[in-house]
C-alpha cells in the first residue's frame, strides 16, 4: 500500500486497478467512495447513484466479478482488483451483451435509471450460476429497486439471456 500526505493534509493514495479491462493508476483522496471515483475521477457516468445507502442497487458494479454497491465501498478497496462498470459490459466480439439485447427486446427498460445496476447484478449472477432458475433470479435481484416495470419484463429478460 502506498499512502502519503498531500499539501492540504489530506491522505492521498496511489490506486492501481483494472477498469473495464484496462490497467489504471490514479492518485486519489483516500476518503473517496468507489462511486465518486467511478463517476468523478473516471468520468464513467453509466453507474447511477439512487440512494447512497446500498438499498437500491442502481450503483452496482462488478469488483473481481462480484456485484457490489459502489456507494458502500471505498475507492481504496479497489486496489489490486478488477472493476467492470456498465460501460465494460460487452458481448463476445465487443457488441451488445446478451443481457443488454434481452433487456431491449423484452421491454425491460423504462426510465432506465435502474437498468445499468440490474444488468450488472444479472451478469454477476449468470457468471456465478449460468443455470440460474427464475427463483434464483428473483432472489438475486431483490437488491435492485425498479419503480417502473413491475419487474416482470426484467425477470424474463434475464431468463432470455441465460446460457447465451
Amino acid at each position, binding site marked *: 500500500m502506498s499512502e502519503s500526505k498531500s499539501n*492540504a493534509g489530506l491522505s492521498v493514495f496511489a490506486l492501481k486497478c483494472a477498469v473495464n479491462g484496462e490497467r489504471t493508476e490514479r492518485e486519489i483522496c483516500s476518503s473517496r467512495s468507489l462511486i*465518486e471515483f467511478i463517476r468523478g475521477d473516471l*468520468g*464513467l*457516468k*453509466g*453507474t*447511477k*447513484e*439512487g*440512494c*447512497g*445507502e446500498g*438499498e*437500491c442497487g*442502481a450503483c452496482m458494479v462488478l469488483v473481481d466479478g462480484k456485484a457490489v454497491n459502489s456507494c458502500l465501498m471505498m475507492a481504496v478497496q479497489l486496489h489490486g482488483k478488477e472493476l467492470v*462498470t*456498465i*460501460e465494460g459490459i460487452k458481448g463476445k466480439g465487443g457488441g*451488445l451483451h446478451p*443481457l*443488454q439485447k434481452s*433487456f*431491449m*427486446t423484452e*421491454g425491460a*427498460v*423504462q*426510465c*432506465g*435509471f*435502474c*437498468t*445499468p445496476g440490474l*444488468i450488472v447484478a444479472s451478469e454477476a449472477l449468470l457468471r456465478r450460476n449460468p443455470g440460474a432458475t427464475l427463483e434464483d*433470479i*428473483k*432472489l438475486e*435481484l*431483490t*437488491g*435492485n*429497486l*425498479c*419503480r*417502473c*416495470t*413491475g*419487474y*416482470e*419484463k*426484467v*425477470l424474463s429478460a434475464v431468463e432470455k439471456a441465460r446460457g447465451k
Partner: protein
Amino acid sequence: MEKLSYVGKSLPRKDALIKVTGAAQYADDREFAGLLHAAAVRSPRPRIKILSISDTAARRVPGYVTLVTYKDIKGVNKWPVVLQDYPFLPEKEARFAGETVALVVAGTARAARKAAALVEVKYKELPFLEDPLKALEKGALKIYGKDNIFSSFVIKRGSVDEAFKKAAFTVEGEFSTNYQVHAYLETQGAIALPEAGGGMTVHSTTQCPFYVLDAVAAALGIPYHKVKILQTVTGGGFGGKEDVPALVASHAALCAAKTGRPVKLIYGRKEDFQSMSKRHPGWARVAYAADKNGKLTACRVKYVLDGGAYSTLSPIVLWRGTVHAAGPYKIANVDIKTYAAATNKVPCGAFRGFGQPQVCFAQESLIDELAEKVGMDPVQFRLRNILEPGDKTVTGQKLNSSCGLKEIIQTVRKRSGWDKKIGDRESGIGNQGDIVTGIGFSVTYYGVGLGAKGRYLDRAGALVNIYKDSSVGVNVGNTEMGQGALTVLAQIAAETLNAPYESVRVEEVDSSKVPDSGPTVASRTTLMSGNAIIEAATPIRERIFKTACDMLISMGAGASQKMTAHGGLFYMGGKTVDFKRVVAECWFRRHKMSEQGWYAAPRTTFKMEDGQGDAYVIYSYSADAAEVEVDLKTGVARVKKIWAAYDVGKIVNPRLAVAQAQGGLLQGMSWALYENLVYKNGIMVNPNFTDYVMATTADKPEYDITFIEKPYAEGPYKAKGMGEVPLIGVAPAVANAIKNACGARVNSVPLLPEKIWNELKKI
C-alpha cells in the same frame, strides 16, 4: 381504412439502447466547465420563525463560494403554482421540517453539503399542525387562511337524504390511506447555466418543462425569451416530477445568477423524501344506498386530503378525486364534499392516479360491503350498476361509445375464473393450514387530460421537421419519463407521414422549440402531443403524397390508378418509390418540410358551484381482480396474481402498454400492502429505502392483462390515455380479497399484517 404501418405494433423503444449501455445522460451526468455545486440548508423543525441565517462556520469549508437566501431573489418571491402561497425561499417562517431555507454554493458537491450542514439557522419554534382532520376543526390553530382549507369542492345531484330514507340497504364506512413516496430512482436535480445578456439555460429532470420555465423566469425576474429549459433524460416521475422540479431548478438558477457560474443542484435521497411532493394521505367517509333489487340510489362522500404546508397541486388533485369519488356507477342522488387541509408537513401533490386512489380504496371497499348486505356477488352487483355508453356519470356527463366498462368487468371475471373461485372460497377449497386464499374485485374510471379544472392548460404543440436526408425531427412539449412517450409519439409521426419508423426521432423537450404544452400528467401525452403531431404532419403529408404520386406517374404508373402508402413506401400501378426519394424531390421542388402543430382539448362544461357538467373530455377504464393469500397466524398478506382489463382506446404500442400496466399494478400493490411513511411530532421518521419498504422482485405477483380497445374518435388513431388507470383500483381489489380470504375488513392503507391480525382477532 388503410392498414396501419406502425400504430398498434410493439416497435422497439427509441431510448432503449442508450439506457442499456449506460450512455443516457441524466441530469447529474452532465458536466460543464467551471461548474459549481449547490446544497440546501433545511428547516430542522415543523414550523419555525427564522431569526437569522449565518454562514460564518460554513465559510471555513475549502471551496466554499456563497450563501443564497431570499434576499438574492431579483424576481417575485412566489413560486407560480396554483395558489402561489409557496415562496422560493422563506423570509420569516418555514412551515415544514425539510423545507429549504437557504442554499450554499461550493466547488464540489461534497463541500457544498458539508458547508450547508455548518450554516447556522437561528429560529424560534412555533406551534404546528400535524393532523388534517384536526386542522378542519373549529378552534384549530390557523396556519393557512381563516380555516386551514386550501381548497374545497362539491358535487350535488338529486335528493340524497330522501334516497337514504327510502333505501332498502345502506352502508357507511370510514377509510384512510397513508402517503406514497414516488421513489423514482433518479432523485430531483437541475443544472443552471448563466447566459450572456442575463439569460439562463436550465437542464432539468422534469415532467413539466414549462412549469420550470414559469418558475425560473419568475425567480430571476427576467422575460421568458431569455430562459431556456432543456429536459434531461428523466429517471422516473409518476407525478413526483410534475411541480417540484420547478422549485429545484429555480434554486439552481438563483445560485447561478448570484455566482455568474454554472451551478448543479442534485438531491440526496433523504432530502428528496423530506421535501419533495408525495401522494396525499387521504381520509374518506363514504355511504351508499341501494334499493331492494341492488340498484344504487344514493352516495354520500366526505373526503379530506392532507395537503401539507403549502397548497402546490392540492386543489387540482382534490378536484380529480371529487369528480371520481362515487365510482363508475349510475347513481341519481349524490352529495360529495371534499377538502384539502393545511398541515405542517411535506407538501403533497401529484402521484399517478392524482387523488383518485385514496377515495377509490374507500368507495370500492364499501361497494363490496353493500353487495354482501344485498346478498349479491360483488361482480354481479357492479354489473347491475355500472355505467354504459349513453349513461350519465354523477356529474351528469353523458358517456359516449368509447366506454368498455361492462366488457372489461366480464373479461376479468372470465379470465380470473371468478365464479368458480368464489364458489371454492365458500367451500374452503384452496386453503392450506393457516394459509387462506381469497379473491377481490374493483372497477375504476379515469378522466383523461386536465379536465374542466385545468382546461386553460389543456393544449399542446409540436414541431415536425423533415431534413434533406429524409430524417425526421419531432419536437413536442410533453416529456419522456420512462413511460415510452418518445416511442409512441414517433410511431404516430411515422404513421402520419408514411416515414420509416427508424427515420423518426422525437427529442426531449426544449422549451424554446415548441409553445407551452402544459404538463406531462393526467395520461394526456399520447392524446395531446399525438394530436399536435398529426396536425403538424398533415400538411407535410399532403405535399409528400402529392409529390410521390407525381413521381410514380412519371415512372410510368397510369394516372387513373390509386396510390397506396405503407411502411415508408408508395405504390401505384406496379411502381414503387420510397420515402427518402420522395423527400429529396420535395426539397428539390422547394416544398415547406417543417410545420408547427397545435391541439387544444374540446371544451368541458363542469360548473364548480354544483359539480355538474362534463368534467373530462373522455375516460379510460380499468377492472382488477386480485388473488391474495393471508397467513392467519401472522396477518401477512401476499398477492399471488392480478387479472386486469383496460379500455384505454386504441393501443399504439402493445408492449409498452403492457409495461405501463405491470408497473402501475405493482406500484399500486406496493402502496396497498407495504409503503408506510411515518411522521412523529412533525418529523418524518423513515426518509430512506431501508425503512420505507417497497415491493421487490420477490413480492411481484403474476399479471394477466387484457385490452378492450374502444376507439375514441378525437384521439390520435383513436387512442385515449394509459399511464395512470392501472394503479387506481389495486388497493381495494387487494383489500376485498383479504376480506374474502379471512373475513377481515381493513379500512386503512397500507394493509399491514398488524392491522389484518387485529381485525382477525375481532372475528
